[in-house]
């Protein structure tokens, strides 16, 4: 990951680190406790068709461009740690996309 978001400072590991940390911190905020609770226990919601369901949000894909993809690559392991903390791996199986390797850039 040379840069993220356009600020090009190649070769400086400090900024590389900061970009990644900030991106992860923002995702950390996005996947808040409410979402994690919904992920684990479901969210009871009466949909527009008047049927009450217990909805479980699942992340299936994440598409990103060339430079961003490398930020997202780190995100895989990061999300895994967040959604499946130590000790709960056996209870909630790892989804397929967590085990996928990133697609190489053509």
């Amino acid at each position, binding site marked *: 990951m040379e840069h993220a*978001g*356009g600020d090009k400072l190649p070769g400086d590991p400090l*900024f590389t680190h900061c970009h990644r940390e900030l991106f992860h911190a923002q995702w950390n905020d996005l996947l808040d406790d409410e979402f994690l609770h919904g992920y684990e226990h479901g969210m009871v919601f009466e949909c*527009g068709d008047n*049927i009450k369901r217990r909805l479980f949000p699942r992340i299936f894909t994440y598409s990103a*461009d060339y430079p961003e993809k490398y930020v997202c690559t780190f995100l895989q392991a990061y999300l895994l740690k967040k959604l499946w903390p130590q000790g709960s791996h056996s209870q909630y199986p790892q989804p397929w996309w967590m085990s996928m390797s990133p697609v190489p850039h053509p």
Partner: protein
Amino acid sequence: MQTEDDAPLAVRRSRRTNRQLQKRFRDMLPEPPLPLPPQDADLLLEVDALQANSSPSMTPNVPSPQADPTAQSARPPSKSCAVLTTQKNSFGLFRVYDEESIPNANNPEDQSGAGPLLAHRLNAPTSQTLPGSVNPFHPYPNESSWLIGDWYWNQGVQKSKQNFKQLVGIIASADFRSEDLRQTNWTAIDRQLGSLGSVVRDPSQTTSMTAGSEEWEAEDGSWIRRVITISVPFPRRFLHPGPRNYTISNFYRRSLLSIIREILSDPARCRYFWFEPYSLRWKHSDGVDDIGVHGELFTSQAFIAAHRDLQSAPLDPSTSCTLPRRIVALMFWSDATQLTAFGDAKLWPLYVYFGNESKYERCTPIANLCSHAAYFQTICIFCLQRTNFNRFQFSYLIISKIL
């Protein structure tokens, strides 16, 4: 015989009546969708008996390795569940449903045709998205004002001859009433249009919305402004080495669950939302084995596996919940966007699509199926340096950025 001889040669000539275009020129239209299984699985056999001769019908069967290899590979053999297989259509396509997740009667596929959601949304009057509002031209008071407002905002920034013709067309139409415009408060309407999300909004959140509110507001109900802090480990060459906090205060995001709630509370969206996955398979007319067909996310192995895991997963024992457990498939994508031709104004939005909706709907821009979830911030190197760079390092940074 005599009359035939008198007729022109072109008429007398014998013709093939069953002429067909060559196969490669034939246009094969999509098949109408197959009927879905009956809602009550217990009645299946009875329905089958009644409709024995009608085609197509549903036949329940227990999965065999040939019939549903996906099911066998996706879950352990001990947990085999009954599946329902539709009859093949003329292309040899058929579907395999789990018996326990048969779609209900108002399933998306019942309303067939190209772009059902789009057609529905385009035909739906505006008042459907504005519960409690009588005026379909809200926030404009009447149709004439709405036409003029639409012309002003949506027909391009620079006025051209075509724009002029459009304006003349609006004014010259028989329905246009110039007296309607006199009472219109344009400033108030523009302010209302500009306040984010005030036009289409979850009815449960309308109370928190105030007309003319600022675009980004914490109490907006959907958009949240967050402060994010990271620890920056400054190396030894900096003025103050060691970890220091770096804070951004303008990370705007929405709650992901509130996006789901907003989408699914809309009956039009919910109607075309696939909660029940199925496996789409193809079998050649001469063939014995069938093969899986890739298509939608809700027919993918990943979705089916996640759905089955969810059905078999133990829930919290404290809640004896009997509600149907369904998956909402989030598909994120993000791309940093340069906003202006000159300058460095840019945005890095995070979008989210729902995999439960058909990809043919999702790829239609005017269907508006994409939701904005967040706007990522990036490190501002000049903010970073302010605290911890000496003058030499700062000038080095400037030069390296320019070069």
